[in-house]
């Protein structure tokens, strides 16, 4: 148990090894270190998970000393393994391992192989630090670290001629940074309120102080945290980086922008759940932002041509569902959706990567088609994942999503219908994606010629993920349909840590079965519509797009959000920068500060040089004038 620190350290060693020696020691060594370290972490994580299950209160606290202290301020270095962080640990190392294995095949021919695995390992290290940290600063180290690795990995092809990956990496990092300010402000507010930054202590104190606490400060703190979540987890208004992040390699998109990093926002909220429950205003905001994002992103995904972009907007949308769930006090439901989403979204991305790899890096859906025959494993796993995400009855996606929608209905029917609308769009675009990619006739014959099923290192993870996606449903089958929603009870120690008054969150009202039924039927209907629109090729869609050109253009250009921001924010800043440059820097600092003294000196020098004539007469005159002056002084 004392060896828990090895869990994050294994990937860190892998990073170090691959970064320094990887290139020299060859591909096999890099693979062994990169994939092996994650495997070791996974094994150790399983061991610790079991240990946690046997521990009292399902909580393991491991302290490794003090990190920083200044007077009354003290931050310990330690890990907390409870149900929440335990599940996250297993997801990160488990699904991470599968994705690393996949990358062996996907990135096999790439020259920066060692660098890729080094960065991926570093990412896993930081992500583990984030979920296992016992104090907010340590969590923040992980938070920032995953942002950094996201930047490094999105911009992996930094040498690409058109600079797209580099710019995308920068965009991601900057948006994350804006959000990080929120997390910092939240930390400051919490420290002001509770005098400590250790998560456990904060929650215990909050539980005791309870209603006496000034709700203003706590609301501020939780709101700031949520702003950080919108940055990291790509919600409105800081979601714009995620679609552009698809410029990175597909395994990166799968690991970071589907399964793990983007879920760190939800992790933060669930981790601090008792605090959030004390601030109903923040919860309302979270719910509405989540719901709006879910619908907003889903509409954009309908008309995207790049297969990865569809999945990116889908991720934004699904994250919106998770926040919707959290906002209506369904912490277990929201987190369960994280869990299920990790499986099927990773599967979707890896499947898309398989398709892209087979078609030699063709990502445009308009050029795909008919791959079902050529890539059966990829096709079947993608079908399973599609079924999960649209909420096909019996799948894990169905379980988690409908639990969220039910709780949303209890809060406000508008939220419920927003969620349903989003689900319909989701069904439509997912079937569109599947149909365009796998069914029908191939639209680009040349790419189709060379298409083949991917190697085993790539298809094996796909199969495992598919099994996981289907099996995850066992943890959270809703009570409305006869299940026990086991995950809720399991997460109880994490969600209500420190809460003294144990009010059982009993949900009343509405009929969960009816609501779930309505949403599922509608979603399936839209799914059938999506399939039928595209099964014969693009003509039906194109005529329909022709009938509503304005709407089509609006959606295709993502509601012109990026352009709007460039106009409102970027252009004025750039103008201001220009002013600072041309006015302040060139005229004031260079001209007046630097050049003026120089020019003055030269003028003074030139003037003084006038007196150096070389003629004795002039010198005698000067002497005489001096004598005159002395005479004047004397006579005074």
């Amino acid at each position, binding site marked *: 148990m004392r060896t828990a620190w090895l869990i994050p350290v294994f990937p860190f060693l892998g990073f170090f090894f691959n970064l320094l020696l990887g290139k020299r020691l060859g591909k096999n060594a890099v693979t062994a270190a990169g994939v092996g370290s994650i495997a070791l972490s996974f094994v150790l994580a399983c061991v610790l998970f079991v240990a946690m299950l046997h521990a009292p209160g399902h909580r393991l606290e491991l302290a490794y000393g003090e990190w920083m202290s200044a007077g009354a301020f003290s931050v310990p270095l330690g890990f907390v393994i409870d149900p929440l962080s335990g599940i996250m640990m297993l997801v990160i190392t488990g699904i991470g391992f599968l994705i690393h294995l996949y990358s062996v095949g996907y990135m096999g021919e790439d020259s920066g192989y060692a660098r890729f695995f080094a960065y991926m390992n570093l990412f896993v290290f930081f992500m583990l630090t984030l979920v296992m940290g016992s104090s907010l600063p340590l969590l923040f180290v992980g938070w920032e670290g995953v942002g950094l690795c996201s930047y490094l990995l999105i911009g992996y092809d930094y040498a690409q001629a058109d600079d797209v990956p580099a710019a995308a990496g920068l965009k991601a990092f900057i948006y994350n940074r804006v959000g990080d300010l929120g997390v910092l402000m939240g930390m400051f507010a919490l420290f002001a309120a509770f005098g400590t930054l250790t998560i456990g202590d904060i929650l215990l104190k909050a539980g005791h102080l309870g209603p006496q606490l000034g709700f203003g400060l706590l609301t501020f703190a939780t709101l700031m945290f949520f702003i950080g979540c919108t940055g990291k987890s790509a919600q409105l208004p800081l979601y714009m980086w995620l679609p552009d992040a698809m410029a990175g390699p597909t395994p990166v998109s799968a690991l970071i922008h589907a399964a793990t990093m983007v879920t760190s926002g939800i992790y933060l909220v669930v981790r601090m759940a008792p605090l959030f429950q004390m601030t109903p205003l923040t919860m309302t905001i979270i719910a509405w932002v989540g719901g709006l994002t879910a619908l907003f992103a889903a509409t954009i995904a309908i008309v995207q041509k790049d297969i990865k972009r569809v999945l990116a907007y889908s991720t934004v949308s699904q994250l919106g569902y998770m926040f919707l769930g959290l906002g209506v006090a369904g912490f277990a439901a929201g987190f369960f959706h994280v869990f299920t989403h990790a499986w099927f979204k990773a599967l979707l991305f890896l499947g898309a990567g398989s398709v892209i790899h087979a078609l030699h890096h063709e990502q445009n859906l308009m050029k795909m088609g008919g791959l079902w025959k050529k890539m059966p494993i990829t096709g079947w796993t993608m079908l399973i994942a599609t079924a999960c995400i649209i909420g096909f009855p019996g799948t894990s996606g169905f379980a988690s999503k409908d639990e969220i929608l039910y709780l949303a209905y209890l809060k406000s029917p508008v939220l419920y219908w927003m969620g349903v609308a989003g689900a319909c769009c989701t069904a439509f675009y997912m079937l569109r994606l599947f149909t365009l990619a796998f069914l029908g006739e191939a639209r680009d014959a040349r790419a189709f010629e060379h298409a083949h099923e991917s190697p085993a290192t790539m298809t094996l993870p796909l199969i495992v993920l598919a099994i996981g996606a289907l099996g995850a449903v066992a943890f959270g089958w809703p009570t409305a349909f006869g299940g026990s929603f086991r995950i809720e009870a399991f997460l109880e120690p994490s969600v209500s840590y420190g809460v003294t008054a144990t009010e059982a969150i009993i949900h009343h009202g509405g009929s969960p079965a009816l609501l779930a039924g309505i949403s599922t039927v509608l979603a399936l209907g839209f799914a059938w519509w999506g399939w039928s629109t595209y099964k014969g090729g693009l003509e039906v869609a194109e005529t329909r797009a022709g009938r509503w050109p304005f709407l089509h253009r609006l959606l295709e250009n993502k509601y012109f959000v990026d352009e709007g921001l460039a106009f409102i924010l970027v252009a004025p800043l750039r103008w201001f920068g220009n002013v600072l440059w041309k006015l302040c820097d060139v005229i004031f600092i260079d001209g007046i500060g630097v050049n003026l003294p120089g020019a003055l000196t030269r003028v003074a020098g030139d003037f003084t040089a006038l007196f150096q004539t070389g003629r004795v007469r002039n010198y005698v*005159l000067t002497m005489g004038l001096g004598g*005159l002056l002395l*005479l004047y002084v004397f*006579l005074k």
Partner: protein
Amino acid sequence: MFAVFALITLLGAVLMLLQKNVIQAGLCLALSFIGVAGLFVLLGNPVAGALQIIVYAGAILILVLFVIMLLNHHEEEAAEKARPVQRWASVALTALLGAGAIALVLSSPGLKALNAGATAAVPMTLERVGETLFSDHLLAVEAIGLMLLAAMVAAVTLVKKEL
């Protein structure tokens, strides 16, 4: 008497300043020297007066005239470039200094005191000068002699065509 000699001295000086021809300027300088000699005599120092005529007017000035005639530059050369600043500043300076000097002399209490407390002077005689010169200041005389020698050698060396 004083006024006469003072006038001669100053007149000679001013004329020297204003003359175009360098030889004539030298001769005006000679006039000035004679005036100075007269002033020395009025001061009760005929030795100094005589020495003034002999050495200054008779040797140094003649030397200067010889050099002028040797170089054959009788007229002042045309100016390379007109320099009004120098000219007018010099004139102004001269005028101011002159006025200042007169004012200083007239107003100085020290001079007044010295003037008042003077006794009648005993005229200087050559015997007295010679006595003191060759007894108390013998070293100085020898030194002067050496200096004159050095000056002579230097002058000869400086104008030799080949060393």
